[in-house]
């Protein structure tokens, strides 16, 4: 009878010394294979008497289990070592930069537009639009600018050539023509995006491009306006004041911005006003809501009875207000661009710096900006 203890010691020593999986496998076959040394020992059990078998059985099986366990443990160790070595060889230099990507931006004017829409939509306003090339009726006459009146000169209008009827189209000098288009239905066929008559009550905002022949740090020949129009039975200047006060406070995201209504003159509103906001101009940037200065921020008023009449609405039945913001200018006030002309210069560095991420869509949950 071979000394089982010696055999076990010899085999486990060889298992632990196996340098790789192949060597380990050779030992396994030698010990536990069909004709392996332990398998041969197990075969001898059948020839023994029951008593001997009772004594030898557990010993030989114990030997087999111990060797098998040792082999499994060694196998795991060898596999881990092999994987570690493979992974170590796969090291890359992660200080290297990823492939270059362009960072897209939303233009600040359009971001501001979305911010304004978010605030006004919350107050129940819907959007309306009209064309950039307007006729004299929509841009002036229907808005109560008398023909050849000096009020028209305030607008530095861009003109297109006279047509065969002696009429000249204009680049709209304000978004107010869409007031007319919203209140009055034209019988001509218009593309569906152009406002074309709506029954009161009306509550719209009108963003869009507007044009005046002017260019300096605070004026550009093209700029963006947002018109507002509310028509109902009993809308008065108090509602106008609340609407604008509330807008300013929400847009600038300050609880209360001190505002001031001043009388003004626009042909299409009566009474007319301009609203100023409190600001501080002492430093390099204008600070809204602080300081001792005022800054004009929006023109507004009650829709002139003649304008209502021109659209077929009875001013004794319907009344309301209108206002007009400069979108680009509101943007410069909030975000600090010093020169309005840069808005339209398409300098990629400027767009990257002052632009906004695609994912900063203004909403009332995360704040506007």
């Amino acid at each position, binding site marked *: 009878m071979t000394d089982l203890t010696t055999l076990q010691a010899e085999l486990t020593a060889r298992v632990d010394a196996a340098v790789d999986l192949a060597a380990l496998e050779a030992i396994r076959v030698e010990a536990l294979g069909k004709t392996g040394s332990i398998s041969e020992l197990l075969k001898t059990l059948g020839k023994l008497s029951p008593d001997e078998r009772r004594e030898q059985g557990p010993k030989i099986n114990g030997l087999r289990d111990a060797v098998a366990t040792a082999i499994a443990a060694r196998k795991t160790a060898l596999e881990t070592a092999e994987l570690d070595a493979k992974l170590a060889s796969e090291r890359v230099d992660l200080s290297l*930069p990823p*492939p*270059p990507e*362009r*960072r*897209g931006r939303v*233009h600040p004017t*359009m971001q501001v537009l*979305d911010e304004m*829409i978010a605030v*006004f*939509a919350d*107050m*129940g306003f*819907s*959007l309306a639009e*009209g064309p950039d*090339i307007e006729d004299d009726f929509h841009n002036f006459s229907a808005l109560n600018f008398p023909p*050849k*009146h000096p*009020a028209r*000169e305030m607008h530095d209008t*861009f*003109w297109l050539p006279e047509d065969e009827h002696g009429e*000249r*189209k204009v680049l709209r000098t304000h978004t107010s023509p869409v007031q007319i288009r919203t209140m009055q239905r034209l019988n001509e*066929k218009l593309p*569906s995006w152009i406002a074309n008559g709506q029954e009161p*009550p009306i509550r719209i*905002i009108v963003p869009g*491009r507007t044009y005046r022949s002017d260019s300096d740090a605070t004026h550009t*020949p093209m700029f963006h306006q947002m018109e507002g129009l509310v028509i*109902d039975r009993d*809308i008065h*200047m*108090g*509602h106008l*004041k*609340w*609407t604008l006060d*509330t807008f300013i406070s929400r847009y600038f995201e300050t609880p209360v911005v001190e505002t001031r*209504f001043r*009388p003004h*003159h626009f*042909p299409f509103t*009566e*009474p007319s006003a301009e609203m100023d906001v409190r600001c501080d101009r002492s430093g390099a940037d204008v600070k809204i809501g602080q300081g001792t200065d005022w800054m004009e921020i929006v023109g507004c008023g*009650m829709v002139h*009875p003649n304008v209502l009449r021109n659209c077929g609405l009875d*001013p004794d039945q319907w*009344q309301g207000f209108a206002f007009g913001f400069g979108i680009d200018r509101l943007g410069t006030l909030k975000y600090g661009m010093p020169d309005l002309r840069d808005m*339209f210069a*398409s*300098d*990629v560095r400027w*767009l990257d710096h002052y*632009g906004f*991420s*695609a*994912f900063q869509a203004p909403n009332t949950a995360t704040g506007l900006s």
Partner: protein
Amino acid sequence: MKFTLSWLKEHLDTTASVEQVVDAMTMAGLEVEHVEDPGKKLAAFTVAKIVEAVQHPNADKLRVCQVDTKDGRLEIVCGAPNARAGLTTIYAPIGAYVPGSGVTLEARPVRGVVSNGMLCSAKELEIAEESDGIVELSDDLAVGAGAVEAFGLEAAIDFEVTPNRPDWLGVRGIARDLAAAGLGTLKPDTTAPVPGKFPCPITIKVDGDACPVFSGRLIRGVKNGPSPAWLQQRLISVGLRPINALVDVTNLISQDRCRPLHVYDAGKLTGTVIEARLGREGEKVPALDGETYEVGPEISVIADASGPIGLGGVMGGASTGCSDATTDVFVESAWFDPIRTAQTGRTTGITSDAQYRFARGVDPESLVPGLELATQLILELCGGEPSEIQVAGQAPAPPAAIVFDRTYVKKLSGLDVSAARIDEILTKLGFTVDGDTVTPPSWRRDAHGKADLVEEVARIEGFDSLPALPLPEIARPPGGALTVRQRRMRDARRTMAARGYAEAVTWSFMRRDWAELFDGGDAKLVLTNPIAADLSTMRPSALGNLIDAAARNARKGFADAALFEVGPNFRGDQPADQWTAVTALLAPHTPKHWAAKQGGGTDGDSLFTLKADLLALLNEIGAPSLQVVQGQNAGWWHPGRSARLQLGPKVVIAEFGELHPRILKAIDAEGPMLAFELNLDAIPEPKRKGVKTKPALELSPLMPLKRDFAFLVAADTPAGDLIRPILGADKALIADARIFDVYAGQGVPEGMKSVAVEVVVQPREKTLTDGEIEGLSGRIVAAAEKAVGAKLRG
């Protein structure tokens, strides 16, 4: 326009300060531009007396003076030839900033003698353009009195008048509003008629089209010359130049009453008739400004027997101007039509004080009172004997009475104002209140209806007392505040930005020759008055502007640009000719990168990157699936490297590709550049409008299988054309078909190419048998053959 507090006080009994006046003006609707206060810059300067003046020991032209000042007796070095003992002048202490010379005084020796201050000239104080020596003041002035008081300097309030309120172009008109606003009491008008001593020897004739009403009188035996100091100072204080007494009187009254007048040297008139009529072709007027103006039948002229001698309501003629030699003066007080005067201003380019006022609408009732006031002042300043007043023509009708329900104030403005207070405000503003009706005064030709009256009441009561009331709740539109199109514009912006493009906003106009590059430039769309020649023409496409933007960035060293714009393009001048485009431009100059593949110029990748961006954009904004059509793009695209996306055979949704080098060269841009232009308005609105629920999702529990097919097609067949027929071969089973290889060369017949397609088959109810798969493959091959003549590669 400008005025001073002392001038205002001629009409307004008030104790208000300049600041209070400015605030009250602002809240009454008069926009104050700024207050020019000479007192601020001269605050440190005071009156002083030279006690002794001796020759400087080291300099011929300097004197060392002992001066009594507010700071005691000081030694001051002075270079002025008139620095002499006993002279009362102006002293500036050490530390004072001298505005005329731009220096701050320091105590430092002048040729060895320390000067403890400075004696000043009028130029150094900026109260005169030129000066000779130091200021010489009256000996009555006390040492230490301020320079501002010594010179009678006053702050000038510079303000802007809205076109509806010409009455504010006279100081009295401002005083009236300020009185109504509670700042003081309007003083009564003391103008009294001056009886004529003889009939006017000059006959006035008017043509109503040229001048509705014209009054005048002759004053003979006047002695013209410089105006007295008070009148000169008053004109200077508001920025006007004194000329001579007769002219200064007219300018004063124009500023004071918004009543423009004109004075003619009667000795220079030809004949005895002055006529206001329309100009005639070929007539010329040499005007007072030294220019000669051609007039025509759209312009009012004043004429005598010699022809036109003035531009009516705009400017007098040189031939009949008043000079110091004038002894007989004819004074004109007329009313010119606002529209005609505005037209004359535009035609001649003249914007005189008179033109400005008549164009806005002068009070027609001020003709005779203005003439009387002028007579009064001329007699006072120049003596003479007035004729009787002659008036020709008919003043326009006064403003009509307005029926005014006082409760309308509350309804329109939200302000609670009592009926008595309403009437008080209107009365103070000159309106006549009579029961239910209110009649505007003759100078308020802007007041037509009850809303105008509400404005008067509200602005005087004060806009600061307006309530703030929330808007009533209204039903919200079901789709939100935006229409589908507006929402698409917004989604397009954010999709493009998310894909790495920077949003530009470029002008709606461009150079005409650039517009022509993109089939635009129609004369109908060329502005008659562009702000610059390169911004003259409404753009047919934003591509030109974006190419130019990328080129400008490249010239600054930033060539790698990905730009987009969402904005209007113009086919014509009608509303329906305007369309909204999403335009993107890619100037691929990717920075060098350590892992980049080798390759130069525009590689296929960039073009397909752009195509991927375009398809992603279409997907985000909910466009239906579109067909790629190659070879039909407009001429500004590279003929081989561009295509369009169509909806059916006619509707072009987008064009994309590389831009034609000819276009880039014309815009001075370095190529290559890639672009797309997407017509947002052409994308149909979704059919399932307003339905929020999504179609039910069917998830098959069975594994999808993939089968590869290699087709042979003609080399010029668009490989993409294989996809639609393959998908159509079995719409239920075929989930996807993807081209994964395109090959031509060895093993493929000449003129052919091999296109390898992986087809994804999704069994729906049961696993497919070999036979079923075989049958499906057959249908796929048949469909490909039928559509594009494809053969399965053997």
